[in-house]
């Protein structure tokens, strides 16, 4: 697992062999990663994977059982939350219900000892940044969910933290708003130049916003990399399955030669793909093939292909999913764009087809 942050980048947060235990339960196992300054970094995983625990440890709400956390080179483990130059956007926003929007946003600066006038002026600027100036004198309860979310953002950004922590901030919003907020958050991160650490269980959210993603499950770091790498080159079965949709096929490796692996899918199907370190001849592993990198044809093409029979077509708006039954093994899903440009055509159920593979579409996974 490569850490792709280049040496020239300043390291904002460094997690060094961090383990978290609650009694006998281990929430995080030996996590090590570094987050560069000015990066939009996402911790992605299903609920219970430890991503929120890690975020809360950076904020200072949870103790570290083993290991160290550094913020711009300083060890912060012993510092209480109010001494750490990081701010959090909470999942439920946690806006102070007895204070106006302006007072909420100015709170951090006032606690830092700035004058009331200065704090309120800065709060005004922040509310302008999130386009909520009109609501400055409202109470949080008078705002919609999306507006509360922006107040929480403004409040956390007002003291100009070195790192902003976001704990599933979009999960309470409806779909349209959530999608709009993704771009807004990304733009806000670029504008402010603050390091964002974003926690989510939504892979689409992670892919659209992040510079880099750390995929977590069961308290372990599964893969760390750029959004594109995580999607195109998943390291193991969990990551391939969790990020996007994929066809997972059981294969045994017949031969590894010149960085190419020849794999037997059973039923007489043979495919070759890039070899992966740690998977040698005779290994029984999984192969991932993204449905959108497959295409159908009546006869063989230049690409590698598998022969099968169309079982069903599923219309999903932008795409059409075609389910193809192979001679052996699970059905394979092919995704084609619902557009005439790609000469898309419907292959009726029962028809014999070739499932063709774009170069590099098949990828071997460690378990």
């Amino acid at each position, binding site marked *: 697992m490569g850490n792709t942050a280049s040496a020239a980048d300043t390291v904002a947060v460094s997690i060094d062999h961090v383990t978290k235990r609650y009694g006998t339960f281990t929430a995080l196992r030996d996590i090590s990663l570094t987050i560069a300054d000015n990066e939009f970094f996402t911790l992605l995983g299903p609920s219970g994977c430890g991503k929120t625990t890690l975020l809360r440890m950076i904020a200072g709400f949870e103790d570290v059982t083993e290991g160290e956390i550094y913020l711009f080179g300083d060890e912060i483990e012993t510092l209480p939350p*109010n001494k750490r130059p990081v701010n959090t956007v909470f999942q439920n926003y946690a806006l102070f219900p007895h204070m106006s929007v302006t007072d909420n946003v100015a709170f951090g600066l006032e606690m830092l000892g700035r004058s009331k006038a200065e704090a309120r002026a800065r709060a005004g600027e922040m509310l302008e940044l999130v386009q909520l100036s009109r609501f400055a004198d409202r109470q949080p309860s008078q705002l919609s969910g999306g507006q509360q979310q922006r107040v929480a953002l403004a409040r956390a950004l007002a003291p100009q933290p070195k790192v902003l922590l976001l704990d599933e901030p979009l999960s309470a919003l409806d779909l349209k708003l959530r999608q709009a907020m993704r771009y807004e958050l990304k733009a806000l991160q670029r504008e402010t130049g603050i390091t964002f650490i974003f926690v989510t269980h939504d892979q689409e959210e992670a892919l659209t916003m992040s510079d880099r993603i750390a995929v977590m499950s069961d308290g372990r770091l599964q893969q760390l990399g750029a959004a594109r790498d995580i999607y195109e080159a998943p390291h193991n079965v969990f990551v391939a399955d969790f990020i996007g949709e994929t066809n997972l096929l059981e294969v045994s490796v017949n031969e590894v030669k010149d960085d190419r692996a020849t794999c037997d899918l059973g039923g007489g199907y043979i495919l070759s793909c890039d070899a992966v370190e740690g998977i040698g001849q005779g290994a029984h592993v999984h192969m991932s093939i993204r449905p959108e990198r497959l295409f159908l044809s009546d006869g063989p093409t230049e690409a590698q292909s598998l022969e099968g029979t169309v079982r069903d077509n599923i219309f999903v708006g932008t795409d059409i999913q075609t389910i193809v039954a192979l001679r052996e093994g699970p059905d394979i899903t092919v995704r084609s764009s619902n557009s005439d440009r790609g000469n898309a055509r419907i292959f009726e159920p029962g028809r014999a087809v070739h499932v063709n593979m774009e170069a590099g579409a098949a990828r071997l996974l460690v378990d």
Partner: protein
Amino acid sequence: MARRTHDIRRYPGFLPMTILCLTLLYAPLIVVTVYSFNASNSITNWEGVSLRWYVDVFTGVEADKYKRAAWNSFTIALIAATTATTIATLAATGMIRSGTFRLRTLSFGLISLPLMVPEIVTAVATLIFFNSIGFVRGYTTILLAHIAFCIPFAYMPISARMQGIEDSYEQAAMDLYATRRQAFTKILLPLMMPGIISGFLLAFIISLDDFIITNFVKGAGVETLPTAIFGAVKQGIKPNIMAISTMLLAVSVVMVTISYFISKSDNAK
């Protein structure tokens, strides 16, 4: 759907039962209130509307006695409710905001147990306690006893309120550079205020109308309104008792009303 057929208002005997209960609860109070405005010397014959018994309470031969008793009652209720509310607030903060600890359930049980103990038992126990440590009975013993038995009454609304306030508010405050103390005074305390005020008012009312414990621990010559009224009633009920009772009732109604409106103006939503 199910509401129609299972609507409790359609049960046979619903209306008569409601009227019976309301009558039993409120008829005596209404009678006392109405007859406190009676012009007659008798408590049963109605001779027209008059404020003479209210005047009598403040200027009559027994006025000094009642004024002293009222003063005692109100100062004791005020000090006892204030002290009990402070203790209950700190107890709630300690027990609800410190996560789970050993004996937590026991602590909750211990603080609310006095609500279940028969008052006469508490009264006898308190009296024996003061006697055994050689404490001279008087104003102070009443006050101390009231503080003690008011704590669980103040604790209930305060702890209920606190359980409804999520940890994330204080965490957000500390995340925004507030110290633990600032997070408490600027965030938690204001959010708890409706519960604290309810707790205070409840403790105040409970202290104000307590008779049994007060009667046991009061010294000779020190009276509160309930013991003074009881003492007077032993020599026959005079209409001025009804005037005092009506005024006490008014104080209670005002307090309950305040408490209701404060709990309605929920600032944590």
